[in-house]
């Protein structure tokens, strides 16, 4: 349970940035 919490919360912390990175790349590519 503890590992699950740490794993989940680590994703909550890190993954939006990762996803954003790709989303921003997509938008930039589209703009170019």
């Amino acid at each position, binding site marked *: 349970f503890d590992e699950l919490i740490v794993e989940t919360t680590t994703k909550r912390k890190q*993954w*939006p940035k990762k*996803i954003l990175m790709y989303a921003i790349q997509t938008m930039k590519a*589209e703009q170019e």
Partner: protein
Amino acid sequence: APGRVQVFATVVDTFLEKLVAAGSYQRFANCYRGFYKLQPEMTRSIYDQFISQLQASIKEEIQEVKDEGNLEMLFNSLDKIVEEAKNREEPAWRPSGIPEEDVRSAMVPYLLKHRSYLRKVLKEKEEENKKVAESVLAGRERIAELQRLIQARKHAWQ
């Protein structure tokens, strides 16, 4: 208010003090009464070593946990974050447990930027096209004019 680092240290020290106070020499000598009667000085020195070693090990462990978890830095930065939020009364946002929903807000500022970029380039394109359209209309007019002229000349010759 004392920072988290200080509270943490104070709480652990208090725990240790009380633990030592609970495990007093009287208590110790009482439990090892037989040995105490035989060797009271030895009992005292064994007790003193026990306590100081126990305290040292516990302090060492705490330091290890602090180093491993980088706790001092985390406590200080949490103090700062809490300080910055001191004017906010209502409960703050918390993860909803639905990742798609939570990641959505993270996208919004970039989508808004993207939207204003698209609005800008669309406006530029429309203005550009407006100018080109005007010259196309002028060109059509010019061509019509030329055709009229040619017709006139042709009729004249005919």
